């Protein structure tokens, strides 16, 4: 347990630093040490030019990638668990491979394709989105599939037995029961997309996402507001997951 707490400490050291620096009042232009406390960064989060636009882009892409990957991935998971078809092994392999491919390889091969297709010049929002959906998809399939496979099929039979047709059975029973898995998959997708740098770096064209912004500003001096965004995202994650847990636990008497 002690070792575990140490490891947790190790995991949180940089985050603690990020939180601290979000209150930094930098003395010079290129400062990355704590020079003094201020609320300014929190009060003016959008002061650094382009940062909030980048965050917005990342949120948009994250949201859309999550929606599409979750949708497509959930369908695939259902097909894999509930249907019989040819090429099941090949399908599983195809789902697994993106998870076993380093991001550089994924990013570079996408770029190679776009270049060969002659669209390398118009990369941007859409190409980032397409790539993010692609690499989130596998994680969604795996997550939803696990939940679905653990679902007791007698639940659905019981529903049918209780006068629910296929459609009602799906929406009233199957979907709510698989939903926590779908939600987990969506959360995972969003974090993967929001956090992605490498694949995006290959295919972003002129579009600047938050990680791209951080990378760029790292070369000229990071504005402390970047830490505000980092802190907020961390808190949002914490609240989301803890809140979700509480919601699940809170049950009518």
């Amino acid at each position: 347990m002690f070792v575990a707490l140490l490891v947790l400490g190790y995991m949180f050291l940089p985050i603690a630093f990020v939180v601290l620096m979000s209150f930094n009042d930098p003395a010079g232009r290129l400062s990355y040490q704590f020079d003094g406390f201020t609320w300014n960064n929190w009060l003016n989060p959008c002061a650094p030019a382009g940062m909030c636009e980048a965050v917005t882009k990342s949120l948009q892409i994250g949201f859309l990638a999550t929606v599409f990957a979750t949708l497509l991935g959930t369908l695939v998971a259902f097909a894999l668990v509930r249907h019989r078809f040819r090429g099941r092994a090949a399908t599983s392999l195809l789902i697994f491979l993106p998870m076993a491919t380093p991001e550089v390889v994924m990013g570079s091969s996408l770029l190679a394709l776009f270049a060969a297709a002659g669209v390398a010049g118009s990369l941007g929002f859409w190409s980032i989105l397409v790539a993010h959906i692609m690499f989130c998809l596998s994680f969604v399939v795996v997550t939803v599939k696990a939940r679905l496979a653990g679902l007791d099929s007698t639940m659905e039979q019981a529903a049918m037995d209780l006068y629910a047709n296929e459609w009602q059975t799906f929406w009233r029973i199957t979907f709510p029961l698989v939903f926590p898995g779908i939600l987990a998959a969506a959360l995972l997708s969003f974090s993967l997309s929001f956090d992605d740098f490498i694949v995006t770096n290959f295919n972003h064209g002129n579009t600047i996402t938050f990680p791209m912004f951080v990378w760029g500003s790292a070369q000229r001096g990071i504005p402390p507001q970047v830490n505000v965004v980092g802190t907020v995202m961390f808190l949002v994650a914490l609240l989301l997951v803890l809140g979700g847990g509480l919601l699940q636990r809170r049950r009518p008497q």
Partner: protein
Amino acid sequence: GTQGAKQAAGECVSKDLSATEKKMKFSNWPLYIDEKRVKQGGSKVTVYPTLQKFEDQTGITVDYVTDINDNNEFFGIVRNQLADCQSTGRDMFALTDYMAARMIDLGWIQELDKANMPNVEANLSESLRSPSWDPERKYSAPWQSGLTGIAYNADLTGEVKSFDELLTRSDLKGKVSLLSEMHDTMLFMLLLEGADPADFTADEYAAAIERLDKSVQAGQIRAFTGNEYAQDLSKGNIVACEAWSGDIIQLQFDNPNIKFIAPEEGLAIWSDNMIVPNKATHKANAEKWMDFYYQPEIAAELAAWVNYICPVDGAKQAMEKIDPSLVDNELIFPGQDLLAKTYSMMGLDSKTEQDYQQQFAAVTGA
């Protein structure tokens, strides 16, 4: 296979919307424009005084981004669009001679309308009027010129006099950075080999690479950087480095112990040139910008802050009014003695360029 990236002249030009859209986007290097920190609504923000003047005078809103860190890196960022006859989203950027040359050669740069830029016509320094790659300055106008030399942090180390020391002094081991652009760094390596950067052979280049590789393998070099060396230098992670003159003078405002020196081997001299890429839709606005910064007073104001060599005739006189102490600053207005110690690398055909770049990349590991 893929298509070549060359574009025929005039093939990729878009309609200029400057008349209706009073705006433009300029990509430049960091530490390359005059700044001022002002309080605004409780928090400090950075504003650019000359830029504000320009906006005020012309009514053109300028999106000024400092996303150029290294010529090659930036080339990588815009090459797909330009090769594909797509917009880069930028109306203008400032690139160093050889890169500007390469882009012009690729047909990616729009010709400028001199009629819109009387100040440039009038005030551009004589020595910069006809570079081999744009003899008539049809495509480009220098933003600033500068020198590449050595910077060190006197808090953390003794004086560093030469490039050779940078590569060999054991007390600097692991705390030295060099520039990630082949042209910058290899110029000095060639000098160390006793070769003339303006006229060297492939063997000399290979020997220079060999020497660099030794230093890298020995762990002497901590990083090959673009403009971001300024950060590690001021943080103290780097105690000495290959650096660009003006940057260092600017850093001295925060830390006077950061020094710039001319290495015993010599200095590199270069210019960064404003160019307007294909598909830029605000060329006329960009030309207005160029013209604006070629007014001697504006040029002097800029130079007083950035401390780079000013390409504008008459700026020296204008400087008298702004900051007389800078009139004799060799880094802004270099004299013949200093210029005699400067070198630049010879032009390379694209095949050789690619080959040399690859050899360099193999050493820098990136």
